[in-house]
């Protein structure tokens, strides 16, 4: 299958990003259904942000994943890797067919990302709370080497419970890392329930501000919002930026939305068919080639 979301097509950024995000969501659902396990909720919630970063914003070259001047991306909430893998595949880092190998033995698509197995992964992730510190390391190197690449780190909201995030928050401020942008995928749900019940985060914006960060709050599914926020982050000087992106866990699949049960649950055949029906509604060019359900032996 060729890339159905042809980025060279003459489309405005917002329309293109929306199409891409839909393509990512379709791949996420297909992938997790075939794997029989995975984390759909948090993958779907960050799909729009990842679509904008990988297809509009980041300076990257899929033919040269190790390019030293590339922008870096870390999905600190590594369990949402189906979104990352989909973006890398659609962007041309590896063939889309590889997505069917998610979580399988001998697969480069590990249950949580392994940078040594798949091209395009700037870091191994999966254990929560670590990605921001790793991003700081990369951003500092950008400063040391006087390079102009930028570093993007997507954080989960449940992940903010980890103390290390706040070690990193202090540190990024100390080193004035204006080349570092953290994006909180604030879907308000973690594995065990609502963040406000498990470990309240509010007032979240005030916390980041108090740590010295340029703090921007947006609707994380509004492409224009995402684009504007990233531009603001790029023009900030002398401090890191956090974009608190309010999102919906399970976005795009009605029965998954705002339901913490879909944090890490596979789909039954009926659920899969329903999800695909919802995601493939309409006439997005993205849907070319997506109308057939994947051949699979895993039926629950």
């Amino acid at each position, binding site marked *: 299958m060729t890339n159905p979301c042809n980025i060279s097509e003459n489309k405005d950024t917002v329309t293109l990003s929306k199409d891409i995000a839909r393509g990512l969501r379709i791949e996420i659902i297909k992938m997790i259904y075939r794997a029989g396990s995975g984390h759909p909720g948090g993958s779907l919630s960050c799909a729009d942000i990842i679509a904008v970063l990988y297809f509009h914003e980041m300076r990257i070259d899929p033919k040269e994943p190790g390019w030293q001047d590339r922008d870096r991306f870390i999905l600190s909430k590594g369990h949402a890797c189906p979104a990352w893998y989909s973006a890398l595949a659609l962007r041309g880092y590896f063939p889309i067919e590889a997505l069917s190998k998610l979580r399988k033995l001998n697969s480069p698509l590990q249950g949580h990302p392994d940078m040594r197995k798949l091209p395009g992964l700037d870091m191994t992730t999966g254990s929560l709370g670590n990605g921001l510190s790793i991003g700081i390391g990369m951003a500092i*190197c950008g400063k040391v080497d006087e390079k102009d690449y930028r570093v993007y780190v997507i954080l989960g909201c449940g992940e903010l419970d980890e103390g290390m995030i706040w*070690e*990193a928050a202090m540190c990024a401020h100390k080193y004035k890392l204006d080349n570092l942008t953290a994006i909180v995928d604030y879907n308000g749900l973690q594995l065990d329930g609502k963040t406000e019940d498990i470990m309240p985060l509010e007032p979240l914006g005030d916390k980041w501000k108090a740590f010295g960060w340029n703090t921007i709050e947006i609707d994380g599914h509004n492409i224009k919002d995402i684009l504007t926020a990233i531009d603001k982050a790029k023009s900030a000087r002398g401090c890191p930026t956090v974009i608190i992106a309010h999102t919906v866990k399970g976005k795009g699949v009605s029965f998954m939305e705002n339901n913490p049960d879909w944090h890490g649950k596979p789909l039954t055949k009926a659920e899969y068919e329903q999800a695909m029906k919802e995601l493939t509604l309409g006439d997005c060019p993205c849907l070319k080639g997506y109308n057939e359900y994947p051949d699979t032996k895993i039926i629950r």
Partner: protein
Amino acid sequence: MNIPTRKSFGEVLVELGEENPQVLVLDADISKSTYTSLFANRFPKRFFNVGCAEQNEMAMAAGMSTCGKIPFVSTYAVFASMRACEQIRTFVAYPRLNVKIAVSHGGVTPGSDGVTHQATEDLGIMRTIPNMTIIMPADAVSTKKLVRQAATRTGPVYLRFTRDPVPVIYEDTVKLEIGKANIIREGTDATIIAIGDMVTKAIEASNRLTEKGINVTVIDMHTLKPIDEKSIIDSAKKTRALVTVEDHNIINGLGSAVSEVLIENEPVPMRRIGLRDTFAESGTYEELLTKYHLNVQDIILAVKDVIRRKK
């Protein structure tokens, strides 16, 4: 002359900084104690003091290494190996990143500070992690040589230094190689394999044994992992009796590593000198070695015991 190996580390780090602009150093608010302050003074733009935040420190180093840097992470062994253990395991060792974890206060050398600052489980913890190279130099000379080699070796390395001064036992001309045990003296009655600060004690024990007509081989096993299996097997074949000596719990450190090699290849009577699965306490370094049976006299008794058992 006695020198803390942490000081030699700090000195060689400055030399490495001069030679290789890719060398970066991170510390967690103890740079005056770990002697990375020497590097900080010389290369302030390549030194990062992250405060009391070892997990952040370790993960930052992982990120730096992906940008082609050679980050040296400095803190105390007890904090690196436990507070930042998961960062080492998942973000340094698993992706085989080129991070050098260079830590002071190994074993009971921070004597009077007590158990919170003594690292007596770290070697075992590190040894269990795949892709890890583990080194503890015996003195100032070997520290400089082995740190230099660690800097050019690709992949994760754990380097453990002493807080307390230890005697200089090597000439500058000594040839040391990561992964290759150094045979300090050869005898046929028994083998003593020691690591780090205990090499000095092993040499002292061997001197006293010689006076009694017992000639032992003394091996400096500065690289705990990958361990030099051939040297262990060859020496066991020759002497048929073996004692290990480490400033660490006897569980999963040098004694365990050597036992594993022997039991699969050349079982011989063996004794392990180390903390006998206990925490130590506050006290001077020498007092602790004596109270917890890590001192010269204990090595001598152990050697006599294994010789008696070999028949």
